[in-house]
């Protein structure tokens, strides 16, 4: 797969009087074409600084960013033609209707066949009925869809979504996520920053955890979860929980405990033990209704990585 973005050793320090805040410290990321890449981290971790550098709003202190073969420090205008941003924190222009605003943004990107393109993005984002309404009067959910419509005008190869569902109700967030999935199917490269772990897990092909300006870990959601879990957790739904615990506790490397009535949690140090567990359960007097592997959530993984690496850095 081709690389869409290559970030190499990007550092940025902000100075305020005598104070210096390291916003980014030697950040290295590669984003492949067509993938949704998640950037997750607490407030002040450096996510916004990184996407601001990529969009040409801030110049880096050191390092290079290559986007679609263009160097961010020398060819930012070329990059801007192929990139767009949706941010949950930006506003819409006052005194312009949705259609007028889109015409304005279309002119900024010199979009060919602008009227047709505006019709297309309005249709895609279900905003056609409000095309003549003032953009500032739209509801939060509609405004966010409008931002997406604006960001899609220039048919960007790379789309940066900075907390696109922040502050939205469940229904609006769902419709934005649905749109993002649709964009992925079109083959666009998407960089997504979010605090919503469920959203990240649902949408992202790969994720980078960032904290205090440093990349802590990069991988697919499954890889990241495996990285932090030393033992596998298996949940057994049965008729005689005490019997199951007694049977399984005899196996070396396995520890079992009753989680609640008829529910046993089993910690296994290796998948190789699963065959032994199944054999033991077959000889047990209890009925076995189901056996499920319990994965850690992305949220648990995130907290473990952030806290673990945070302590290492202190």
């Amino acid at each position: 797969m081709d690389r869409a973005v290559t970030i190499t050793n990007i550092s940025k320090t902000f100075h305020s009087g005598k104070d210096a805040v390291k916003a980014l410290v030697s950040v290295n990321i590669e984003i492949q074409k067509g993938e949704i890449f998640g950037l997750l981290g607490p407030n002040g971790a450096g996510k916004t600084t990184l996407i601001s550098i990529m969009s040409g709003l801030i110049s880096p202190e050191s390092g290079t960013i290559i986007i679609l073969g263009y160097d961010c420090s020398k060819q930012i205008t070329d990059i801007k033609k192929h990139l767009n941003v949706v941010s949950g924190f930006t506003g819409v222009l006052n005194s312009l209707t949705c259609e007028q605003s889109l015409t304005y943004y279309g002119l900024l990107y010199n979009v060919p066949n602008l009227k047709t393109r505006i019709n297309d993005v309005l249709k895609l984002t279900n905003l056609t009925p409000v095309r003549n309404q003032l953009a500032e009067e739209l509801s939060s959910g509609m405004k966010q869809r409008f931002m997406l419509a604006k960001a899609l005008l220039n048919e960007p190869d790379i789309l940066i979504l900075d907390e696109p569902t922040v502050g939205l109700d469940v229904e609006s967030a769902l419709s934005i996520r649905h749109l993002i999935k649709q964009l992925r199917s079109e083959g666009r490269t998407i960089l997504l920053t979010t605090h919503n772990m469920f959203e990240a897990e649902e949408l992202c092909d790969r994720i980078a955890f960032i904290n205090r300006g440093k990349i802590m870990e990069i991988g697919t959601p499954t890889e990241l979860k495996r990285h932090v879990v030393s033992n596998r957790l298996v949940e057994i739904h049965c008729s005689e929980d005490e019997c199951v615990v007694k049977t399984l506790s005899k196996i070396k490397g396995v520890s079992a405990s009753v989680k609640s009535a008829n529910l046993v949690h089993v910690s296994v140090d290796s998948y190789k033990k699963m065959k032994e567990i199944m054999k033991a359960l077959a000889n047990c007097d209890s009925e076995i209704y189901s056996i499920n592997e319990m994965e850690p959530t992305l949220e648990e993984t995130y907290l473990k990585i952030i806290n673990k690496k945070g302590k290492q850095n202190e």
Partner: protein
Amino acid sequence: MNESISRIYSQVYKNIVSLRRQSFRMADVFIWPILYLFTLTFFVTYIGSDKSYLNLIILGMMGWRTIYFLNLEIVSTFMEEFWSKALPHMMISPISRIEFTIGSAISGLIKAIFVIILYLIITNILYGFWIPDWGTFILALGFLAVIGFSLGLFTLGLAYFFKHDAFNISFIIPDVIVLISGVYFSVESVYPSSILPFIRLLPTTQAFELLKSIIGFGQPNMILLILLTALWLVLAYLFNGWMYNRAKKEGKLARLG
């Protein structure tokens, strides 16, 4: 459409289309210039001075409005994006700072031309005012437009960093020019001879001298006017670029988060 022209036109489109929904900006074109015109012309009529002084006031107002609109439009176009929190959308687009400045200056020029035409019609009907030398009149307004553009570039440079404070400055500058460049009077008759050389070294003074010369009040130094106008333009361009890069470095240009 050529890419650059499209981006320049985007600013003209935005400013003109949004004008009818912005009462403050509408008043700036339709109400304040008329009130200002009548305030000064009524006063001159009241004190019963020579009609040439009335003409001086009318010409001065036309020239001043040119500087005012060019300078203010550049900064207010930027500030309106900032106030509506939409500035990052524009700053991440391929528009360059020069394309932005030219685009907003063009919409300022359109407003200035509209107000000047309005002045010409009203003053012709009420006072029989007319331009005796159209060539010099347009040339003088052209210089004033370039100077207004330079001032806009300068104030925009401040706005990258200081936002609201820079906007306040953009309102103050044209009024200071009225005083130090003798928009409605002769600088020789007001300022002491020790200060006059400095006053004459302002392109605004020379441009207003050219404008006033149409009715026999000014004595412009054309070489000085050309050189000073060009110098201000170059300095303003360099200052704007320096401030832009500084703001970009310090993360003050626009914020996504």
